[in-house]
């Protein structure tokens, strides 16, 4: 009897859905992927939907109580839950909103509209990554994700291997590409603390790394702050950089300090 293929469903929360688009754009690899798994739900490319799935691939961050409920249901249905992209892994740029009280943000964005009161669609709380709500089995970081890495993660999951996402800084991949260091060109880059796996795509094209894939397990943040200061970046600018894609780490650090 032919072995049944694992059933995969895609879901999205607060996000641009660009990471799913990356998968829709896998080109020839899409055929290989569909040979490996049955895609039973994928709003961007198909009408059909099924709640019978083994692997849930979830894009987006969690912003509201209703999101939390829906994510928990997905978790219950899935054997494996994959966080897809920066929104799902860390909270991405929308996490910047956590710098301000929620009420203030709602008022700033929507004004004081009485109609929004008690409307669950606008009942925002602080932005969370998926693993702050439910256990996550695998991560595909990045804004957007790297298509090859998605395939690697999928293969690792199906083989039962540990995550192939590296735990060393972007600098490693940047050097392998023989790039001239952006610091040498007078630019400022988050590469030394950012998690590799993207092939240093931004620095390779001359753009500063913003650590969209999050940090390595032990980012040397003090050394990084020293370096940025040496390159004339003010404390405020450093904070701005760290708030862009990696505000989660600022929150976690603050929480840790309170606990200590």
């Amino acid at each position, binding site marked *: 009897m032919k072995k049944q293929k694992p059933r995969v469903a895609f879901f999205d929360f607060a996000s641009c859905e660009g990471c799913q688009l990356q998968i829709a754009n896998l080109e020839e690899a899409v055929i290989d992927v569909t040979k*490996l798994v049955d895609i039973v739900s994928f709003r961007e490319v198909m009408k059909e939907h099924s709640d019978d799935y083994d692997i849930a691939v979830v894009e987006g961050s969690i912003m509201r109580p209703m999101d939390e409920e829906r994510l928990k249901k997905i978790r219950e249905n899935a054997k494996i839950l994959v966080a897809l992209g920066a929104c799902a892994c860390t909270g991405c740029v929308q996490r910047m909103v956590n710098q301000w009280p929620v009420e203030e943000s709602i008022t700033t964005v929507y004004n004081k509209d009485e109609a929004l009161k008690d409307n669950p669609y606008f009942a925002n709380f602080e932005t969370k990554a998926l693993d702050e709500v439910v256990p996550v089995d695998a991560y595909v970081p990045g804004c957007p994700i790297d298509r090859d890495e998605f395939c690697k993660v999928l293969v690792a999951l199906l083989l039962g291997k540990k995550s192939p996402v590296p735990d060393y800084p972007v600098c490693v991949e940047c050097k392998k590409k023989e790039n001239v260091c952006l610091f040498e060109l007078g630019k400022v880059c988050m590469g030394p603390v950012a998690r590799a796996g993207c092939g240093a795509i931004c620095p390779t094209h001359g753009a500063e790394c913003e650590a969209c894939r999050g940090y390595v397990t032990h980012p040397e943040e003090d050394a990084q702050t020293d370096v940025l200061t040496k390159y004339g970046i003010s404390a405020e600018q450093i904070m701005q950089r760290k708030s862009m894609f990696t505000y989660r780490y600022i929150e976690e650090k603050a929480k840790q300090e309170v606990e200590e």
Partner: protein
Amino acid sequence: MNTKSKRDANHENPLRIASKKDFMALVDSLIEDGSLEVHGVKSKGTKFVFGLLESSDELRLDYDVTVIPPKKYFLPQDESMMHFDTSQPFSVQANEDIPKRVIIGVHPYDIVAIKQMDTYYTDSFVDDLYVKRRKNTLLVGAHVARVSEKAFFGDMGTGMVDSGFDLMLTDLKDVIALEVGTTAGADLISSLKTRDATPEEVEKIRKAVEKAAAEARRGLKTPPDQWSHLLQGNYDNPVWKTQSEKCLSCGTCTSVCPTCFCYDVNDKMHLDMKTGSRIRTWDGCMLRSFTRVGSGEIFREKRIDRYRHRFYRKGEYLPARLNFVACVGCGRCSTQCIPDIADPVTLINMVTDSSQTLKPPVPHAASPVTVEGQVPDDTGPGLYIPCPATIKRAVQLSEWEKLFELELDDGSALDHEPGQFVEVSIMGYGEAPISVSSAPGTKSFELAVRKVGDVTSRLHALNPGDKVGIRGPFGTGFGVEELKGKNLLVIAGGIGIIPARSLINYVLDHRKDFGELTILYGCKKPCELLFGDEVQAWDKREDVAHLRSVDSCPEGECWEGEVGLITCLIPLATFDPKNTIAIVVGPPVMYKFVIRDLMGRGMPEENIIVSLERRMKCGVGKCGHCQINGVYVCKEGPVFRYSQIKNSPEAFT
């Protein structure tokens, strides 16, 4: 035309002069011809890189230094070592896709680094992948025309070389001087119109080389041949701490270094879930993940230890091992380290100024920076290609450990010594070092395996009849010949019993050859005890003394033995400390305490033998992961005399 006589003529007077125009035309004809890939130095923005030349116009002999060194041609950033097909029982093909190349414009300091790499990659085990690439490559050197700001090859004595190249160029504006290094180099220019160099031209080249070397001096206070002496006395110098605190652990210094040759290996399975490749990738000791083993433990976790290791490898460990200082003064790390703590000149000078020891002694006669690398002709069978073996039997030993009996498919015995290990391959999952748990003497061998990483988890899912790959046996054994006639005290903690069992069973198989045998075995909980039947058999034997302990015994489990850490057994055991050899195998934390208590009972340290675990990725002393200071655990270990390793600060941390 008789090419032989021409070659000979070139060797008698190796310095030839060609017009630049003719030389560039030759480069273009090589590109056009296509039988060789023609690589050379090209510009990349304001910097330079080695790359494939599309035309001689791209070639920049006036460069100062490239972003990364030419080591990439011999140890590529990512290199396919072999291809596999898991739809077959066992199918592994060596990667034969190794292009023929010529590389134009390699500076002398980089040639020195390549010679060092030759020595390293052919030392005791010949790395055939490296050698094939090396043999397929012609090196056309170029004297340094422009010195980069941070270069210090003048201080290191690497501004010129008299071998290690096929050709060496000197750009003399309208003409190019060519020094022929090999017959292959002579062949390369056999069609080029050349003439003898005039005495004036010879003098001009000599002056240019000297000028570059003089410019590439940055006031290094301790010459390279004394680095080893300086470092030996300064392991605890405060410089390591203050400098390492600025370190980003980004790996830039090791990536751009021409003498950093460490690599990692990972299996890449294609989306078809059948075929894939085993790939080796640049790795570096400055990265935190470098020493991480399958269980997640990191052996060199502190930044200061990683930072210090890089300099000690260059200045002490490799000089002691292979007689060269693994720094050639290219200045790449000095330029590219963002916090500016990688520069060897600054660091060596800081250590020199604050040296805790007296001033270094008189320098050695020979400069150890240059070596004569030899590239052997015969590389033998692939060093990394595993031999197929079939699982004959698989027995669950405990919740986490399983025993596998294996036979090599070629019918030969493993022929190991107790204490050695093998590299077990499961294609698509990777390779892991596993101690042999059985005594030699049978056709099959046994591996007891704890499920911790990708390979071991997959292995646990395999069944009799399934195939795995085996390389080895590797490393040192317990040295049974030397142990014969001696009283033995085997102390095994946790899964340390697995390698210890190979010795215990050997002694039991040859009981008359040995003196007393005392076995102390401790594990965490009763359910973690391995080889229960054999352990009980030791109890019954009169010629074996055996004591066992558990750290704790949870309620509901029964235990016949002591409760406490394994050290609690040492006072209970009867042995003559002066006339007994102790063999200690266990988790890293165990050694310090067991050794302390053995010595407390009067055992001399030379009577203690230990077996240590590290990340033995390649098994042949190349990948660099298993180093304890300068020692390769996979080669000089895993079994050590305690006296041999006790002064290595990284051994028992």
